[in-house]
């Protein structure tokens, strides 16, 4: 019974495909998988928007949306109808073709990234040898669509926003890749399915997730920082800083195309969360051996939604960075720390079992972290704030 609950989607797909002639079954299976992805993740996107507005409202001492449906949970439907019925305005000087292609390209590329994420036991659309590389290739392609949007609008705020977004995404892609390389090195495979399988073991009832090792924890922190920047989320949301750039690269978008950008952005957040859960939090494996009876896909989506909640919490808490701080942080702190983490992971690998490697690896990471923090702060003097003009 529980076995069936775990594999329910696979069984459902096989049952549906069984109605077709034998030659069509493989193709139909893939099409059904694509339909599943295209149905489930936008559904999560709708939940995320209402969760974000309610959560931010709670953090900022207000109610948030509460008119449509009980407690406002039907708000996404109202938003969708509104954006679908709005007029689609294209600026007169805009490059109409590129202006149209940018949001479509973004959404297509982000959806393709989901194809390699294992959302449950045996539940992955494409299991290929180099799936992590495929994911990052798709992630890198989103930069082109953001540039297309910003440039084709013929608007200085759009262009500035796009340049900021692209520079930021390129800078944080390096630490994002490097923190994943640590996991690849320790697993010995680029296949996300194999990475999850390597973590799906238990000793004393506790899981072998990579986050529960010194190098894994450090890599996870770096991944979380780089992932937040990669999805242009607060506190790294300079590309769309309202006070400076109106809305960044999608200033000139309205109606359905704006909705596509919005969708692409939230899907990017969901997919970065999904990859983070897969790499560090054991993917679809249960957090305790005794909880293995719960269907695997529930664990995956629970982990993704948990990291979405953290994203919202961070957005409600931290102030926005400045552009130079952002770049310095990426190149002078996050990237060196991920490189150090690679070395630490190698040390861990060759020290053999035992408690000693825990102490050595933690000591290196904490020591360098504290030293780098001290060194970075050496020229900063924190005293009473002084105002030049206000007094």
């Amino acid at each position, binding site marked *: 019974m529980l076995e069936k609950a775990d594999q329910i989607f696979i069984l459902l797909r096989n049952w549906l495909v069984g109605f077709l002639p034998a030659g069509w079954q493989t193709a139909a299976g893939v099409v059904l998988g694509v339909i599943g992805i295209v149905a489930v993740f936008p559904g999560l996107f709708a939940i995320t928007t209402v969760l974000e507005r309610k959560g931010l409202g709670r953090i900022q001492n207000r109610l948030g949306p509460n008119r449509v449906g009980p407690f406002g949970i039907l708000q996404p439907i109202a938003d969708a109808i509104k954006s679908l019925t709005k007029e689609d305005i294209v600026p007169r000087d805009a490059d109409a073709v*590129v202006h149209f292609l940018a949001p479509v390209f973004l959404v297509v590329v982000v959806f393709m990234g989901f194809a390699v994420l294992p959302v449950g036991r045996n539940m992955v659309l494409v299991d290929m040898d180099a799936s992590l590389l495929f994911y990052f*290739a798709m992630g*890198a392609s989103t930069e082109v669509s953001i540039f297309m949007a910003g440039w084709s609008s013929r608007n200085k705020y759009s262009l500035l926003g796009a340049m900021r977004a692209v520079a930021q995404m390129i800078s944080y892609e390096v630490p994002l890749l490097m923190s994943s390389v640590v996991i690849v090195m320790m697993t010995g495979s680029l296949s996300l399915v194999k990475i999850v399988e390597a973590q799906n073991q238990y000793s004393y009832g506790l899981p072998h997730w990579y986050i529960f090792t010194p190098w894994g924890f450090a890599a996870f922190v770096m991944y979380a920082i780089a992932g937040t920047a990669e999805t242009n989320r607060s506190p790294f949301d300079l590309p769309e800083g309202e006070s400076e750039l109106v809305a960044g690269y999608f200033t000139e978008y309205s109606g359905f195309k704006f909705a596509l950008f919005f969708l692409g952005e939230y899907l990017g957040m969901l997919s970065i969360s999904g990859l983070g859960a897969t790499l560090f939090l054991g993917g679809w494996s249960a957090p305790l051996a005794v909880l293995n009876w719960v269907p695997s896909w529930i664990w995956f989506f629970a982990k993704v939604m948990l990291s979405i909640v953290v994203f919202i919490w961070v957005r409600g808490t931290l102030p926005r960075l400045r552009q130079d701080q952002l770049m310095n942080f990426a190149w002078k702190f996050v990237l060196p720390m991920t490189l150090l983490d690679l070395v630490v992971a190698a040390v861990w690998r060759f020290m053999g079992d035992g408690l000693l490697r825990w102490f050595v690896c933690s000591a290196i990471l904490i020591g360098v972290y504290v030293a780098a923090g001290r060194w970075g702060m050496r020229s900063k003097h924190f005293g009473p704030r002084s105002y030049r003009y206000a007094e």
Partner: protein
Amino acid sequence: MGFPFWILAALTVAGALAAVLLRNLVHCALALTVAFAGLALLFLNLDAQFAGFAQILVYIGAVAILVVFAILLTRSTETPKDGGVFSRTWFVGLVISAGAFAVLGWALLQSQPGLSLGPATAPAATVQQIGTALMGRYVLALEIVALLLTAALIGAVIVARHEREGTKEG
């Protein structure tokens, strides 16, 4: 020589043609992205999965973006006022490239019969094998590439940074 090959080949060649023929440089860069994507798909068609994804990651994710950054930083989107976008000696260049294509095509047609030697089934090239080869037989090349990339990184920063005031007038 299936159906997908000709579509991908047409896509790649059309992207490349647009990249060198269009007037607006940003359009050229975007057409170049199309050509890179077509090439990546051709690599996948050739069972070179790793090389195909590396192509997308490096060329579309980095080189194309670098090119558009350079275009915007040098304000090259405005087409020159005098004359077209082609150089004064465009005819010579065209003749040279047509000659190069003629030679390559002639060599290709001459060697047709000998070009069907390899196995028909796809050779296995897993990431594991590539990694082992990189760390074994090709480790020296890997180290040299690492050195070259470091040198290029530093060199690009030095070349592109602002010249210090006083070392140069104007």
